Structure formats: structure tokens, C-alpha cells
């Protein structure tokens, strides 16, 4: 494996980490209004399952972005300037979500919380739908000209395939979040989350399966048949384990599906990172978009040394907060009233 291939895989791994970890964060945010309907304590149970970890989960995206910049600057430059409005939308959503999660409990007032819940909703639904759409476009190709600039209109990015990709990540993350909630909660919230898992399983299998088969047939390589298989296997496992009340295995199942789906997408792109729909001559691939061997070598050392440490301490965080949450464990609101008495 040469350094370009190594970095392509590593960025794939960073995005996989992001989708696995933020996948259920988005799912939790998407399901919060449904599972918490009518009870603020229940909404807080749902939100606090990701309380200590969501911020670190999000850093996988920041680091993936930094790694793209360092290893494939041409990819970073063309993609980020090309997907301008999509990224603007994503950034607004992420900003709203961060502030809404952190500020929700700061003021003890129903209206304040309602606004924060809207922020959490927007910040979870938009990225969950948008990431699949963006990545489907990366597989399908974009109108990239000889200057490595994306030209054409936004309609080029709204193909049925790309829109199906958005739908696929949207519903997959919702299911992943529901399975995570079954694993992390107890009592009534867990029972309701199980019901949502059952409700989502078949539509997820249809949409994600459809997108997977389309990707495989149109863009896939030989070996990606295998990851398509494990993606399906993951969903089957999730469904069977959920029915059997084996919450940990159900979560392993959806995690496997998210990993496989990312591998399928990234594997179908290889060796391109941004194929051009105008001419194959303008394709950006891992060789014409990469940094120099020296930069890649330095960054490889940094990644090989730092990533295991990150995995260990992030894993430890999940261990520390492994307890299931129930409504009884949620303390009374400690926020200040909306209007000061001073």
C-alpha cells in the first residue's frame, strides 16, 4: 500500500468513525421529539444518553476535514468550494445543535426549551440527510472542469441517486439512534425506543438496501459486494437482536451497517476522490489530489501514534458512562428562570 492509498483509507476510517458515532447522535436528536412527546423528563433522558460524548463524536468530522486538507488539499479545495451552499447549511445546523444542547438546561422555562429543541431537531435532521446526499454525489461525480472547479448549477447535485443517498443516511441514522437508545435507556423510554426500531427496520432495509444495490451496480468494485453483504447482515442482526432483547448485539448490528455503508461508498469512489461528469480527464484521484510524500509520511506517523490513544480514552468515556438512563435518574431542572428577579 502506498501513502496515498493509506491516507485514502485513513480518511475513510475518520468518516466511518464520524458516521458511526455521530450517526446515533443525529438519530437521538431526530427521535427526541417523538420519544419525549409530552414529557420534558423523557426528552432529557433521550438527550442525556449522548450527553458526555456528543462533542467528542463531532470532532471526528473536524479531524476528517483537517486530514483531507493535509493529505489531499486539491480534494479539500474543490469539494469545499464546490459544495458551498450544502456546507453552509450543514454549518448552520451544527452551530444550532451545539448551542441548543449546551444551553437547553441553562434556563428553566418551557419556551426556552422549546426553542432549544427546535435547534437540536434542525441540527440533527439536516446533517443526517445531507451527508448521504453529499457522499452520493462524490460517488456519482460532479461537474468538475479542467481547473478543478465545480461548475454548473445546484440541479446537477440533485439527481435521484444523490437524493436517495440522503434519504438512506437519514433513515439509517434514525434507526442507529433508536437502537442506541434501546441500549442506553431503561423503563418506558426503552420500550418505546424498541417499538421505533421495529417500525424503522423494514423501511430502512428497503431504502438503504436500494441505495446500496444501486451504488454497487453502478459504481461498485468486486470486493464491495462483500461489504454490501455485511450491511444487510448488520440490519438482520439488529432486527433479530432487538426482537430477542439483546440490545448490545442490535447496536453491533446497526454499527456494522453504518461501517459497511461507508466502506461501500468510499470503496466505490476509489481511486477517485472527486470524479468529473464533464470528462474523466478532469477526475480528481488520490494521486493527482494528494500532498507530497514527505507531508504524507509525517502525517502518517502522527496518525499512527495519536489515533490509538484517542480510541482508548474515547472508549474509556463510553465505559465510564455505560449505565442505562431512566426518568428516575434525571435530576430536577437547575436552570435559572427566564426573567431575572434582581
Amino acid at each position, binding site marked *: 500500500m502506498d501513502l496515498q492509498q493509506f491516507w485514502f483509507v485513513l480518511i475513510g476510517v475518520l468518516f466511518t468513525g464520524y458516521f458511526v458515532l455521530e450517526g446515533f447522535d443525529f438519530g437521538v436528536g431526530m427521535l427526541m421529539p417523538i420519544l419525549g412527546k409530552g414529557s420534558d423528563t423523557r426528552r432529557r433522558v433521550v438527550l*442525556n444518553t449522548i450527553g458526555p460524548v456528543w462533542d467528542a463524536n463531532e470532532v471526528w468530522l473536524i479531524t476528517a476535514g483537517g486530514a483531507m486538507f493535509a493529505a489531499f488539499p486539491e480534494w479539500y479545495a474543490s*469539494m*469545499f468550494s464546490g459544495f458551498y451552499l450544502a456546507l453552509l447549511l450543514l454549518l448552520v445546523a451544527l452551530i444550532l445543535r451545539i448551542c441548543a444542547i449546551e444551553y437547553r438546561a441553562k434556563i428553566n422555562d418551557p419556551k426556552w426549551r422549546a426553542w432549544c429543541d427546535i435547534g437540536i431537531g434542525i441540527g440533527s435532521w439536516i446533517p443526517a440527510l445531507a451527508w448521504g446526499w453529499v457522499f452520493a454525489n462524490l460517488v456519482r461525480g460532479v461537474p468538475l472542469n479542467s481547473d478543478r472547479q465545480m461548475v454548473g448549477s445546484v440541479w446537477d447535485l440533485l439527481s435521484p441517486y444523490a437524493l436517495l443517498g440522503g434519504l438512506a443516511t437519514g433513515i439509517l441514522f434514525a434507526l442507529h439512534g433508536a437502537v442506541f437508545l434501546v441500549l442506553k435507556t431503561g423503563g418506558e423510554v426503552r420500550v418505546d425506543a424498541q417499538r421505533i426500531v421495529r417500525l424503522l427496520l423494514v423501511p430502512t432495509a428497503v431504502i438503504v438496501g436500494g441505495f446500496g444495490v444501486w451504488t454497487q451496480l453502478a459504481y461498485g468494485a468486486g470486493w464491495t459486494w462483500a461489504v454490501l453483504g455485511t450491511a444487510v447482515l448488520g440490519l438482520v442482526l439488529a432486527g433479530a437482536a432487538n426482537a430477542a432483547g439483546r440490545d448490545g448485539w442490535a447496536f453491533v448490528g446497526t454499527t456494522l451497517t453504518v461501517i459497511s455503508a461507508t466502506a461501500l461508498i468510499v470503496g466505490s469512489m476509489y481511486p477517485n476522490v472527486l470524479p468529473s461528469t464533464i470528462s474523466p480527464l478532469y477526475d480528481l484521484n488520490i494521486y493527482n489530489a494528494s500532498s507530497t510524500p514527505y507531508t504524507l509520511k509525517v502525517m502518517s506517523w502522527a496518525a499512527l501514534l495519536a489515533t490509538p490513544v484517542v480510541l482508548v480514552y474515547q472508549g474509556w468515556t463510553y465505559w465510564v458512562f455505560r449505565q442505562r438512563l431512566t426518568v428516575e435518574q434525571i435530576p430536577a431542572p437547575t436552570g*435559572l428562570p427566564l426573567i431575572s428577579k434582581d
Partner: protein
Amino acid sequence: MDIVDVSRWQFGITTVYHFIFVPLTIGLAPLIAIMQTAWVVTGKEHWYRLTKFFGKLFLINFAIGVATGIVQEFQFGMNWSEYSRFIGDIFGAPLALEGLIAFFMESTFIGLWIFGWTRLPKLVHLATIWIVAFGVNASAYFIVAANSFMQHPVGARYNPETERAELESIWALLTNNTTLAAFPHVVAGAFLTAGTFVAGIAGWWMVRNARSGDPAKLEDARVMWRPVARLSLVVVALAGVAVIFTGDIQGKLMFEQQPMKMASAESLCHTQTDPDFSILTVGTHNNCDSVTHVLEVPYVLPYLAEGQFTGVTLDGVVDLQQTYNVEYGPGDYRPNLFVTYWSFRAMIGLAAGSVLLLLAGFWVTRGGRVPDQRWFSWLSLLAIPTPFLANSAGWVFTEMGRQPWAVVPNPTGDPNIRMTVQQAVSDHAPATVVFSLAVFTLLYGALAVVWFYLIRRYTVAGPDEPTRPTADDGPDGPDGKHRKSEEPAVEQLSFAY
């Protein structure tokens, strides 16, 4: 509107906004770690109350700092794609290292700190806030290293075939003399900000409690607020000395490496031997020769530039402009003289707010005194924003002083490694960038109001009552193995969103 102007406004607004919150985070994390350490070591409950109180303010600030930081990671590619192509080989490395080493650390351990009060052993929990404090400072190092490359590119060569700058030595990049001077300056500024913030709030609370007439509150002022005020004033004093010292080193480097920036900072139009340091000028600054120097001090400027009082010749803006025209082709190489001149003075002048608070604070709390003077309470509040403004002014000076360059040519390096902002910008329709500029400005404006409202509310609400028991430090299991017998069967979370 010109695409370069809109993109520059957008980068300026989003970065200045980000850097309102960043210095408070960088400086406050170690201060809170110190407070918590004091609690763990002495067992005194007021240190626990202070840790929790400033911890809340810290988290309100941390959230918005994170939210505004994400934009920065993407903006290089979105608005400055030609720049990203040209220096990505070099510039991407510190950004990726920042994510890998610093961001993961601070974001993971802040989660452990927030939610771990009763879940982690006391010393492990204390370690988490120290790791956060280390992480936030490490991230500052990497991003300052990235910025310093733009100011003074080192460790790189130009490849004429790809027309890109290529990294030659990561070590040279990470030990750039500009980085080694700018990083301590930025951190010292951050400690000055956080020290002033804590001292200002403590000062205001001392007076408020002392005037309340309630003996319990007076006791709070004496036992809790006075020590933390004096502690943070010591931080202000140390940070102040560090700011001056590192600023002086940085200034000398800039005279050598970025003479145009320093000539603009002084409104020095023509090359001159032993010029006076200008304190006040009048005139339409962007016409260099129209500037009238009103107030000047001799000997200061030669010392700032080269460490000696006489015998120093400094290049003027007009002469540098001619030199650059020859070296880099025709063009306007002058930064905005008005902004560079006044932001430099604002940066230095605004630090006076912290100095005033420092002197007055030590005076009114001398020999065990608890101040009740109303003027001191006003001074405490008014001093708080001054270091924030000084930080902004300093960055505005640094960044606008390098214009029109995105990558300033290194006078002793490869002259091909240079790029103007004109060449760096993405090829967007101006309307697209005007739209995103409007979106960010409105969103940030609204969030700033929320941030200020929350900080104000929580400052005025004060720490929780002293009757509140300090958190149980014992570890517990999911089945309650280690739970003490008198506690209820279902233990509530010590913190929940």
C-alpha cells in the same frame, strides 16, 4: 461588491467572533483547574463553590467557542480554495494535528468533567479538567503555527511543476520563530483575559456582598471572593508581564521579517534613522504623506525595533512600496494604514483596563480588607471587556497588517512562496458569498446576545448556597455495588442537560 472584499469581511467577522470566546476558554480552563485543585487539596468548600460557579460560565463560553470554530475549519476550502491548493501541503498538517491531538482531547475530557462529578474518583475527575486545560492550549499552539506560516513561511520549497508550496521540514514549521513568539503572546493574552474576567466578577461580588449588610454574605466576600480575586490578580500580573515581554520579541521579529506591517503601525512613511515613536497622529491615513504626527516620543521606536536607543534605520511605507514593486511586480503592497496604526495602539492601550484593576484590586484588598467602595465595583465590571477588545485589536493588527498578502514573502526564504489575497480567493459569484456572510453574521449576532444574556444571568445569580453538600466522590457501579447504604436506590445524575 468585489469577491475579495466580501470573502475578507466574512473571514474577518467569523474569526474575530471566534476569538471573543477562545481566549476566555484558554485562560479559564487552567484557572478552574487551579480552583478545583485548591478544593481537592484543602477540602475547603468555597473552592468547590467557585469551581462550580466559574465552571458554569466556562461551559456557556466553551459551547459557543466550539460552534464558531467548526466554521473556520471549513472556510479555507469554501472561500479560499486557491490558497488551500497552494499551501495545503503545509497548512493542512498543523490543522490535522490540532484535530488529532488537541480537539479530541479537550472534547472528550470536557464531557468527562461535566458529567463525571459523582461518577469518577476525585483525583481522576481533577485530572480531566487539567487535561482539558492542556488540550485547549495545545490547540492554540497548532493553529498559531499555521497562522505563523502565513506571516513568515519557513520549512517549505516552491515546486514550479505543480506551482505549489511543498513542506520540506515539519520541524522547521513547528519551530518557526514567529510561532515561538506568537504562541506565548496569544496564551499570555488569554490568561490576562481570564484573570481579568475572574478578578472582575470577584471584585464586583465582594462589593455587592460587603454592602448587603448581611453577615453571611460578608463572610462569603471575605472567605471566598477575596482569595479568588487576589489569586486571579496574580495571574493578571504574571500574564501582563508575559504579554509585554513576548510582545516585544514579536515586535522585533516583525521589524525584521514584515517591515511593511511595522512601518504602517508607526505611520512611518519615509525611511528614517532613529524615528520617534508616534502616540497620536491626525490625517487621512491612507494617504501616507497627509499624516501629521502630533505626539511623539524619542528612543522608544529604535528600542522596539532592534533593542538599542539610537543608530537604527527603519524603512518607510513609501520606500518599501517601491522596493516591493521591483521585487514582486507592480501592485499596491500597503496595508490599510489607518487600521494598522490604530489597532496597534488600541491593543496596547486597552491593556490598561487590566492594569487598573490589578493595582486597584491589590490596594483595596490589602491586609485582609474587603472592599465596599462603589467605584471599585464599577471598575471591576468595566475592566472585564478590555482584554477581549485588546485581543481583537491585536489580531486585527496582525492580520490586516499582512495585507495584501495571504502568504507574506519571507525576506530570507524562497521568494516564490508568496500569495496575495487576490490570488487566494475562491471563484464564487460575489452574491453567493454575500449570502453566507449575511447568514453567519445574523446567526452569530443572535448567538452573541444569548451568550451575553446567559453569562450575565449566571454571574448575577452567583454561586450555589454553601449549605449544598459537596459532591460524593465515591465510585459507583450500575448495580450499586459501591453505593453507601444510606443513599436512595436510584441515584440521580449529578448533572444532566
